[in-house]
């Protein structure tokens, strides 16, 4: 598990890769893992710490790998990644041909 230093007031989402297929997932409502960032649960402060614990439990339960908290901003469309890496994790590779082939 890795946890990144962050501001206590900055909203975060809990993210990981799914164990079976490696796909990017986020912690959604309850203990469900979702494949779309828009459905992820954004949390702050003590709620963030509690959500991270839920993620760690899911890691121990062999659902996911490499749980960490990623900073987001909030918008009407849902959480928005702050870092370029998280934008790419959420949207997939930015390369044009890859996008065409995946379509």
């Amino acid at each position, binding site marked *: 598990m890795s946890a990144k230093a962050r501001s206590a007031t900055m909203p975060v989402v809990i993210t990981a*890769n799914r*164990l*079976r*297929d*490696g*796909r*990017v997932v986020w912690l959604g409502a309850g203990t469900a893992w979702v494949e779309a960032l828009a459905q992820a649960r954004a949390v702050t402060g003590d709620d963030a710490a509690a959500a991270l614990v839920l993620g760690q439990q899911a*890691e121990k*339960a*062999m659902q996911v*790998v*490499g749980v960490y908290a990623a900073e987001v901003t909030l918008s009407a469309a849902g959480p928005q990644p*702050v*870092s*370029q*890496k998280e934008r*790419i*994790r959420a949207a*997939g*590779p*930015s*390369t*044009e*041909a*890859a996008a065409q*082939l*995946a379509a």
Partner: protein
Amino acid sequence: MPEAPYIPQPEHARTYRYDAVDREFLAQRIAEFRDQVARRLAGELTEDEFKPLRLMNGLYLQLHAYMLRVAVPYGVLNSAQLRQLGMIARRWDRGWGHFTTRQNIQFNWTQLTDVPAMLDALAAVDMHAIQTSGNCIRNTTTDEFAGAAADEIADPRVYAEILRQWSTLHPEFTWLPRKFKIAIRGAEADRIASRTHDVAVQVKRDAAGAVGFTIQVGGGMGRTPILAVPLFEFVPEAEFLRTMEAILRVYNALGQRENIYRARIKILVRDLGRDGFLDLVQQELARMPLAPYRLAPEVVQAIRAHFAPPPFAPAGDAAAALARATLAEPEFAAWVALNTRPHRQAGYASAVISLKPVGGIPGDATAAQMEAVADLAERFAFGELRVSHTQNLVLPHVRQDELYALWQGLLAAGLATANFGQGSDIIACPGLDYCALANARSIPISQQISRVVDALDRTHVLGELQIKISGCINACGHHHVAHIGILGVDKHGAEAYQITLGGAPGNDAAIGELIGPSFSYEAVAGAVEKILLTHIGLRAPGERFVDTYRRVGQAPFKEALYARA
């Protein structure tokens, strides 16, 4: 799932064929990993326990999925193997694969649950993913024109295969201080970026025709780029493995395991000095009797038999037929001029299949393209193929009078880009689009720059130009030894790109020099355009970019990039 049945390989292709012992070993190894995957999924292994096991089998966890890196030993493939890689891409990935600078192939969308079946499918064509990761001796790379080049002195595939057998599961060298990369060539021309390797070997012959090896040591890229230095001028064939073993033993004993950034052999050689390192190797050699390590001529001969020349046909008027075809079709003539190389056999040429379409992803090939190339290899090249460290494919033996038909086949498959060794033939690592280590994207930068270069090339004919892009300081994209090198970095949370100029990978090897402050993602392609326009304004007739740079120095390029308008 039962293991996949063995797939017959093309009769004339000169690739190393496994025997029953090899196949039994692979079957056991896959069964072992299948069990490890099952135990991981069942919760009997933690990720910390499983990670070293999956890495030993070439399986990484990247940004979006697992990535399986498959070994292509010294870049040599046959058509049955390439067709099988295409099948794997279609069945278990997203329909394509990515050829790498280690002459391997990566599947970027692998599911953990599919990996044992993928390994079965690889084993069916004598392939695997062992030692494509971890702190072991990785895939030895060699000249993509091995066994074909007109200037070849000795066939490096024979000794690359000997190194493969020696280094595979070597009990002493499975847990080295850091990964270890060897390159070997059999020509004076360095087409393998020799001096960027931990050990670089050149196969030579003495005045009597006996084979021996020049060995350089201590090269590497990453955050501390160093070019390998000469260690031995001529090691006799019989002493080759003993010498390699001694070098590895000294490194294994003294490499700095406690610091990942100082753990490569380049740091040890630099700190000890070449003479200090040589002294330790010679001390080790003095403790090693030759007999157990002697590379016997009959062993070499048995392996050489795997790489005997295919049944070439007499040259006839092949050269004249090629000349007529080039006169009739200028586009074909341009492809021949850039993408073919002289062959040692009269009437033949080696043909480079560029995986660098302008605006495309360097090194990517779709399943359909792999299958098309496999078909073309069977029609025109005895079923033989090579993967180059520049992320292209090569058909090593094509009759000159069949090049036109080959080119038409490549056109149909979207693989006839005429740019081998040119500015749009860019090496790029997967970068932040896929790689968990990257700081910045490489592929989209490559796509942008290839368009810029192609546009300039059409009006100014830039000639040989090596542009290489890495998405982090690990330098998988070889940017240190590029004429124009681009390194992606994280600058206050944003992607930024440093540019180095004047590097080179071959006989004129050099580490590029940083030109100045970095550029944003949006600005870097424009910066490369300014550099090339400056070159165009300063070059002597026919002068390559790197030669102009070495002649005039940094100043005019700095001026073009950073002077206030």
